[in-house]
């Protein structure tokens, strides 16, 4: 077990700290073991949860964070080990057993009912929807939202709401259930930098109010910013438990990954050959309105060979509509598109993929995977009917598996089994699969929508490197839509900022400035 040297400097304080709190953990999980078939997801894990503080559960993709908390919240059952609540062993057989003790979990993948309104989703199953109570319930929810700095339109239908907004609905829904212990599984991965800050302060306040908050993340900085204690998981083992005052970010990263973090991405220097024809040109593109969706307003963009064009914007300002318009999943109603030398307006999505366009969708569960099918089948989705995966109307299983093995190795997809069903992969590993698939066949244009969401630092780095390599070495054009400004600034040649369906400005490298972009994202300034 790694015990970091950083602890020794403030050893006294650290010991005092843990002595005081270790006396009365509200919940402790002891020696928890969980297997999924042959995968050992948790190997004798111990954790303690105290009232009035934030515990960060830090670990890479597939470390077992979600599994551990799914056990506490009654979704899974441990194979071995016990759960102590206020010192006494308890049995948590179902989410209900957890809920009655005030243990509420906000999952990594949302479980909102799409056709219900925000308010309906928040109060569902609590008996608050009886006649006559509507007014007071609404007041109550509004008050709760205000207390926690959450702004939401309670009457909006959840369907089509940006993920960042859905995240807030989930949290408010959890708070409405009066938790003692609130488990948040990667609550910041869907948020913009500003929103992350306000989320972290909300979390801190919740702890001050006396809740026990468990904050699952693989972002070291966020863990340090918000948590009092940090427990690190790696491959189902606890790698160490620290008070956040006694560790440094670097040592945490090292323990999480079991290796020194790699150097930062060098910022790119790209000069597109002046004569080259753009890979993609959008002129005055508009899309029709549909419920819950942003309409694009006169979008003008060009993407050149070898270029990485960033699209910055708060989630839900037309990014999804933009990529869907290019993929002809949502046909433009006005304007023109030129894609790889042709007019794609009359092409099917399939024909667009065949032109050499690959797409990493934002919504990985709904738009990205076939959960009940295997890794190798998911890997070839979209190129399943062409060589080398299909020859003369017959699919070549060996070819699919070989390609999948490569991707598993390259992106460290876990479990490393081509035959595993994708539905059991952790969130980050699903994302790795989507990236691996998109870069399978030397695409000419890559539409990457939040390609690093939910990925740990090492994999984020790997994905960005691969995108950069595709553009620099193969001359691909990359449209990188991201809410992570640092990521955009580190790899993009130009950044276009979207606000309410419009491109409010395009910045080149010299003009890239976090604050300026942030202001544009909020609709405050133009280029």
């Amino acid at each position, binding site marked *: 077990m790694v015990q970091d040297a950083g602890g020794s400097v403030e050893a006294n304080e650290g010991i005092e700290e843990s002595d005081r709190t270790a006396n009365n953990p509200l919940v402790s999980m002891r020696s928890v073991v969980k*297997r999924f*078939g042959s995968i050992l997801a948790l190997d004798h894990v111990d954790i303690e949860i105290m009232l009035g503080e934030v515990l960060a559960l830090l670990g890479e993709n597939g470390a077992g964070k979600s599994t551990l908390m799914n056990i506490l919240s009654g979704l*899974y*059952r441990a194979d071995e080990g016990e759960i102590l609540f206020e010192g006494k062993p308890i049995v948590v057989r179902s989410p209900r057993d957890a809920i009655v003790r005030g243990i509420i979990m906000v999952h990594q993948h949302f479980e909102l009912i799409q056709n219900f309104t925000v308010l309906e989703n928040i109060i569902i199953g609590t008996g608050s929807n009886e006649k006559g109570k509507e007014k007071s319930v609404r007041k109550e929810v509004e008050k709760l939202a205000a207390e926690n700095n959450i702004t939401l339109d309670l009457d909006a239908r959840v369907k089509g709401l940006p993920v960042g907004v859905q995240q807030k609905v989930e949290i408010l829904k959890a708070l409405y259930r009066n938790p003692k212990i609130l488990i948040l599984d990667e609550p910041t991965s869907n948020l913009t930098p500003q929103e992350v800050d306000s989320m972290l302060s909300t979390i801190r306040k919740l702890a001050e109010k006396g809740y026990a908050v468990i904050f699952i993340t693989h972002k070291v900085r966020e863990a340090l910013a918000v948590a009092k204690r940090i427990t690190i998981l790696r491959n189902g083992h606890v790698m160490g438990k620290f008070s956040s005052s006694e560790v440094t970010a670097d040592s945490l990263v090292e323990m999480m990954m079991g290796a020194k973090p790699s150097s930062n991405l060098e910022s790119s220097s790209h000069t597109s050959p002046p004569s080259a024809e753009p890979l993609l040109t959008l002129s005055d593109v508009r899309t029709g309105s549909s419920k819950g969706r942003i309409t694009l307003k006169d979008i003008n963009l060009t993407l050149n060979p070898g270029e990485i064009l960033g699209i910055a914007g708060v989630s839900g300002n037309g990014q999804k509509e933009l990529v869907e318009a290019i*993929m002809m*999943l949502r046909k433009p109603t006005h304007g023109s598109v030129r894609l790889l030398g042709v007019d794609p307006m009359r092409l*099917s*999505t*399939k*024909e*667009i*993929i*065949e032109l050499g366009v690959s*797409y990493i*969708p934002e919504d990985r569960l*709904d*738009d*990205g*995977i*076939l*959960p*009940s*099918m295997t890794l190798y*089948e998911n890997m070839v*989705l*979209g190129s*399943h*009917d062409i060589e080398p995966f*299909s020859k003369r*109307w*017959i*699919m070549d299983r060996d070819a699919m598996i070989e390609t999948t093995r490569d991707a598993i190795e390259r992106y460290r997809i876990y479990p490393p089994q081509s035959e595993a069903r994708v539905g059991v992969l952790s969130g980050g590993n699903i994302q790795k699969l989507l990236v691996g698939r998109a870069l399978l066949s030397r695409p000419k244009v890559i539409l990457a929508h939040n390609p690093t969401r939910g990925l740990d630092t090492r994999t984020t780095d790997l994905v960005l490197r691969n995108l950069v390599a595709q553009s620099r070495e193969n001359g691909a054009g990359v449209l990188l839509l991201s809410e992570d400004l640092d990521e955009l600034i580190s790899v993009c040649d130009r950044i276009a900022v979207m606000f309410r369906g419009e491109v409010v400005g395009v910045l080149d490298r010299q003009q890239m400035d976090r604050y300026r972009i942030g202001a544009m994202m909020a609709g405050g300034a133009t280029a």
Partner: protein
Amino acid sequence: MKAQQSLVISKLLPYILSFLGVVASVGILLALIGKNPFEGYRILLSSSLGSPGSLSLTLLDFVPLFLMALAFVVPLRAGKYNVGNEGQFLLGAVGAVTVSFVLPNLPSVIGIPLLLVAGMAFGSLWAVVPAFLLYRFRVNEIVSTISMNFIAYYLVLFVTTGPWHNPLVGYPQTNQIGSNYILPSLVRTPQIGTGLIITVLAAAIVYFYISKTPAGFELRAVGANPRASLVYGIKSNFVSAMSIVQGAAIAGLAGAIQVAGLLFSLQYGMQGNYGLLSLVPALISASSLIGVGLISFFIAVIDTGTSALQGVLGVPYEIGLLIESLLLLLILLAKGYGGSNR
């Protein structure tokens, strides 16, 4: 390894229990109407499996049952419920007699394949309407295919009482098809007919289609996640609509085989309970065609056995129906339980 074993057991246990439940309730039912349960069990088994002759009967029952289950499974893989396989079966039978009456003098080598193809064509044409409604207007296929069933019943009534009506029987039934159209049987005892061979062949083709071809991949992909399939270039709506037509072709084949291999004419009510019974294997074992085959055989055993009970013990016909419905119910219960077991 041990964990896996216990997983298999915990998956199978509900089915075993439900099977025992059926056995027990058959006994209780028999006892209630004053028959000896053990005598009942003996007759049930011996009349379905006990001799080459009785095995032949079971196999004759197995053929339409298995094909109908496949007709349900293929669309099910794309997430569609083809409860109209009964109507498609009837249309396949209509197609078969139509060929034999319109072209009465074809030699068997041409005539029989033509009859089978006509059955498949008629069956799938019957599904074109629901498929189109689904594709174009998103009309739920359960509702539309069931409606087509009712139209099929009347169509059969119309054909069996029309110009092809057999005046010698007091029942809506057509004349016999010519002997050049009758499926030859290859082995006498137990009787292995061409119908059985075709069925096994059809199952092999379905297996190959679903698991080895890109089109089958698309079928499964759409069943797994239609939206993601669409995003990656698969025409999800088209694939799911076509899956019903494909399933219908198999149901049509079943109807044609039933005419050419067993009944030799179109008969009102010839669909029996095959539509309902075919749901059992299809729903239990949608992911494995071998499983569908095994369970279909098992149901054929019960089906044949209970009809023998009627004959030998004088058990009322309704008891047979009751047992079969009970089986369906318990198995669905078992499936529901097995499915919710994490």
